[in-house]
């Protein structure tokens, strides 16, 4: 909320400068967002009176003027503005003046005519935007020769505070002044409250029925007739509105806005002649009902909307915005003023149903003072009569007796609760003083250890004693509450050793050269589609962008996206990983599951001068994953089987199983997909559920052999289609206890091996825990094994 510092200071006298004021407001919880001078620095501008205007002899669009600036001879000034005319009061920059932007006014000749100054537009003085409006036209009463800054009260600041949703009571000068008054223990200067003199009997009858009673427990109107239409409001009111960021619309509307900013009560004015009866009603809208608002929007209503109507048509969207057909016009002479208390939730629903937020709805939603409507109406009526004339009619009021907002709130506050919550002791006298200065009435009881606190009607945010504790702390000053050290009960959390942490996997990946990325959890439908098997993705109804509408089912779309972006920026090597939740629909609602995803492409390691960098392939990423599985100490629990994942290369992909449970996929991106994504390199992908990758084994000591082992190499020629896994499985199954380990160290196809076959070279290690083996027994075992391989797999010993 923006307001003028000078205006605020008319409500309270404080001997503090702007910096301190701003700091105090912020520390009261009224956070100041920005402070800016209402006008940039300039000097030498005074109020002038245009005495004559004659055509410039040499320029079509210029005029020569004589301007009285109250100081000796009138000045000759050449002026190009269309609206210059004799008799006008204007802002004149005299010779020697310094204008915003460092522009200096000197004696000059314009097209041969002398010019001793400049008549200024608002834009030239940095106080308005509109250049086409021409020079500023000042009020007739402006004193000739007065310094313009002084006349316009430009030594002022616009302060913008960001009100928290609970402090609706501070959405006015009066509200802010109340908080400052409590802090500084200084009284507020009240505004004029002269009683209204009734000059005619005309009034409308207000009807509020059924459900609308809870929406509008207070509704008051007054008719003012014969107001003048040719009068501008005085400068202080115009400027107060302008500096608060409120556009000037119509003198009546401007006065209502002025009173709203002054005290916080939004009001509305109707053109009396547009009403078809003297009965108006507040009711909920009917679904499908239509009206045109002040902003010319045609809206279709729902039952969420609250209306003020006459007997035929909606007059306004209550508490939000007026209707066009009933709005005051330039020639309106009779008006109906409305001032009401609307239920905050009803107005919020109503405004939200039309996606509207106005200065009025902003205040009603936050809860205005339910006791304010009448005095605000009188204040507005008083100002209208003062400036625009007109005759006031009687007050016509509807008032429900039993609305919750109208009941006086009384809260019991225990003294001990203050220390229990804040952690410091505050003197009872200070507490009483603070709360009283906030307008609360206190009645001590229980030997002064507790109070019954009566809450003022404007504090709609205070419901329970803890709210009062905050008020006490706020005025006492958060800064004055000394930090203390928590006394903690020692605790020792469980740390399961059979569970790896995500951090440990991430660390391992970092050491293997992978970089962690964090991508959005939402992706585009098109991007995700090729990765779906049978999952139903969760789709946002209001995504931030159409390509971020679907919750990720897999980490791959995000990783591929990151890969492509980096490739476009000439990255050579992209080895990345991400861990996080993926999402899909389930029968019960949504499945949200932790996954780990890897993408590797380009050289496996950084370029090294001693060797050629090899590009990453299937076995490189499989090696990385095996390394992760090794961390569990449970490698035997995981198995790889050929995969048929649609996004992966059919010949270079594998499914990872954990105890026969499918947990992940590894492979090279399918060539067709690579092509459609414009990827020319090999891209390797891995993704798996995270929890099974974290299931570690508690280490258990097993005695190891102190005797030397014997190694034997074995080269077998087998069918090309035989998998290494099948071969190793058979060896492990058939081999006796003496076989300690078997490793593949070479695969060969080509010269010397017939087509359709391959050679697999194995290294077998034999040992015994209790003795040194002799060659002969190892040979015997080898011979048996070879026979079994020959019989079982049609393997041949390679010559």
């Amino acid at each position, binding site marked *: 909320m923006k307001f003028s510092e000078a205006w605020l200071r008319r409500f309270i006298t404080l001997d503090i400068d702007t910096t301190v004021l701003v700091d105090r407001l912020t520390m009261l*919880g009224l956070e100041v967002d920005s402070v800016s001078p209402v006008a940039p620095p300039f000097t030498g501008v005074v109020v002038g009176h245009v005495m004559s205007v004659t055509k410039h002899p040499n320029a079509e669009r210029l005029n020569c003027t004589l301007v009285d600036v109250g100081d000796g001879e009138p000045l000759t000034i050449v002026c190009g503005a269309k609206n210059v005319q004799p008799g006008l009061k204007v802002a004149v920059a005299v010779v020697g003046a310094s204008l915003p932007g460092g522009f200096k006014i000197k004696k000059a000749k314009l097209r041969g005519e002398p010019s001793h100054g400049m008549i200024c537009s608002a834009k030239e003085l940095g106080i308005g935007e509109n250049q086409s409006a021409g020079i500023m036209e000042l009020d007739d009463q402006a004193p000739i020769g007065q310094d313009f800054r002084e006349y316009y009260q430009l030594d002022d600041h616009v302060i913008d505070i960001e009100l928290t949703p609970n402090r609706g009571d501070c959405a006015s000068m009066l509200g802010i002044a109340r908080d400052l008054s409590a802090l500084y223990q200084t009284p507020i200067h009240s505004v004029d409250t002269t009683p209204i003199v009734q000059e005619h009997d005309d009034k409308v009858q207000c009807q509020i029925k059924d459900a609308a009673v809870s929406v509008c427990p207070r509704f008051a109107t007054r008719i003012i007739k014969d107001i003048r239409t040719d009068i501008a409001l005085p400068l202080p009111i115009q400027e107060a509105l302008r500096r608060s960021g409120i556009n000037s619309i119509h003198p009546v509307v401007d006065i209502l806005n002025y009173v709203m900013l002054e005290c916080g009560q939004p009001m509305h004015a109707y053109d009396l002649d547009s009403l078809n009866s003297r009965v108006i009603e507040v009711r909920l809208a009917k679904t499908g009902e239509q009206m045109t608002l002040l902003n010319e929007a045609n809206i279709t209503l729902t039952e969420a909307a609250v209306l003020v109507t006459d007997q035929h048509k909606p007059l306004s969207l209550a508490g939000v915005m007026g209707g066009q057909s009933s709005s005051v016009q330039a020639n309106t002479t009779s008006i109906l003023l409305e001032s009401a208390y609307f239920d905050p939730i009803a107005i919020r629903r109503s405004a939200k149903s039309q996606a509207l937020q106005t200065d009025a709805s902003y205040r009603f939603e936050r809860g205005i003072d339910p006791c304010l409507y009448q005095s605000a109406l009188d204040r507005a009526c008083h100002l209208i009569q003062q400036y625009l004339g007109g005759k006031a009619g009687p007050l016509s009021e509807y008032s429900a007796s039993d609305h919750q907002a109208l009941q006086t709130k009384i809260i019991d506050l225990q003294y001990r609760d203050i220390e229990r919550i804040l*952690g410091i002791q505050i003197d009872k006298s200070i507490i009483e003083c603070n709360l009283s200065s906030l307008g609360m009435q206190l009645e001590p009881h229980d030997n002064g250890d507790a109070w019954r606190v009566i809450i003022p009607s404007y504090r709609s945010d205070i419901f329970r004693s803890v709210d009062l504790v905050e008020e006490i*702390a706020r005025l006492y000053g958060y800064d004055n*509450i000394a930090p203390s050290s928590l006394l903690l009960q020692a605790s020792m959390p469980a740390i399961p050793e059979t569970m790896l942490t995500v951090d440990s996997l991430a660390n391992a990946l970092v050491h293997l050269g992978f970089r962690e*990325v964090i991508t959005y959890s939402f992706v585009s439908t098109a991007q995700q589609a090729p990765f779906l098997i049978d999952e139903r993705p*969760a789709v946002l109804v209001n995504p931030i962008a159409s390509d971020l509408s679907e919750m990720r089912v897999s980490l791959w779309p995000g990783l591929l996206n990151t890969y492509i972006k980096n490739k476009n920026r000439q990255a050579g090597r992209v080895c990345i990983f991400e861990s996080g939740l993926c999402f899909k629909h389930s029968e019960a609602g949504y499945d949200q599951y932790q996954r780990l995803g890897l993408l590797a492409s380009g050289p496996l390691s950084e370029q090294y001068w001693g060797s050629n960098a090899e590009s990453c392939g299937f076995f490189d990423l499989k090696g990385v994953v095996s390394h992760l599985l090794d961390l569990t100490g449970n490698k035997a629990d995981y198995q790889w089987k050929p995969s048929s994942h649609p996004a992966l290369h059919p010949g270079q992909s594998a499914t990872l199983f954990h105890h026969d449970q499918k947990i992940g996929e590894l492979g090279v991106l399918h060539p067709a997909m690579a092509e459609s994504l414009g990827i020319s390199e090999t891209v390797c992908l891995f993704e798996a559920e995270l929890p099974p990758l974290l299931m570690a084994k508690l280490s258990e000591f097993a005695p190891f052999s102190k005797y030397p082992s014997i190694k034997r190499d074995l080269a077998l020629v087998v069918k090309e289609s035989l998998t290494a896994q099948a071969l190793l499985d058979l060896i492990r199954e058939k081999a006796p206890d003496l076989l300690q380990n078997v490793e593949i160290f070479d695969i060969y196809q080509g010269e010397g091996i017939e087509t359709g076959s391959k050679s697999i070279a194995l290294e077998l290690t034999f040992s015994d825990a209790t003795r040194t083996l002799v060659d002969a027994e190892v040979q015997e075992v080898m011979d048996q094994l070879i026979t079994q391989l020959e019989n079982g797999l049609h393997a041949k010993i390679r010559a």
Partner: protein
Amino acid sequence: MSTAQEDLASLIQEAEGAISAAEDVRALDQCRVQYLGKKGKLTGLLKTVSGLSAAEKPVMGKAVNQAKQQLQQSIASRESILQAEYLASKIQSERLDITLPGKTFSLGSLHPVTKVTRRVKALFASMGFQVAEGPEIEDEYHNFEALNIPSHHPARNAVDTFYFGDGALLRTHTSPVQIRTMETQGTPLRIITPGRVYRRDSDHTHTPMFHQLEGLFVDEACTFADLKGILQRFFDQFFESSLVLRFRPSFFPFTEPSAEVDIQHQLCQGKGCRTCGYSGWLEVLGCGMVHPSVLEKVNIDTSRYTGFAFGLGLDRLAMLRYGIDDLRLFFDNDIQFLEQF
């Protein structure tokens, strides 16, 4: 001098010459065989001693043995010279340009948000705070209502929420994890809740997804002064510097009293600059005493227990810690950005 003695002298001279002429260990070995071996020249000469007269025999025998020792010594000293030379030349030939880079195992990197998250977790873990996690697709109850934000509360305007159309939504803060943990674990409670959160907002200071970490402490006798104490300590330790903190009154539906915490901007030393919006302060955290309505909803006895909670943006913390000037960099994942951490 007898003939035999003359022969011995010339043999010694010849052998000494050959030894010093030996260019490598192999040549030297040949010398040893040639003169001292079983069929060597000196051995041959020794065999002739037995044919000498009784008077000459001992003299000559002694002389040959001395010669043998002398030559053995010469060979040994030549050998050590040759070995030293060999080693020197081997070393010379194996000399490397040690300024060439080592063969690297490329080191990857953790995302800066992860680095900061781990740091915050470690600091709070040392005070007994345990990590709690929860779903990111949430329901209205845990994300709003249980946190004292009924529908049609103006506070719901403050955050724009992503919805799925069936009542489910993306959590706008990690506070629902607090509710879920209080529901299941009861009191006393000491948790932190790091995680992804989502708000429908996007510009250079907002991304539709970011990271939050909230802390919750519920116990007997925990106060606002304790909250101030723990946060002051945390920021000092996190930034490894004594920071000036400012607690200013604010509003959150789920805490009362509530505060926003600003740290004095280090760059401008609180004088105000563009980065801090000329205020001299940077907003880093929201906190407060848990609202009794929130505790009541999870059946915690508010006459016995109080609690405090705080929430901070991990991305923002990473920006401050590492001097990152644009939030969007975090989710762009440019390798040139990632490799700096």
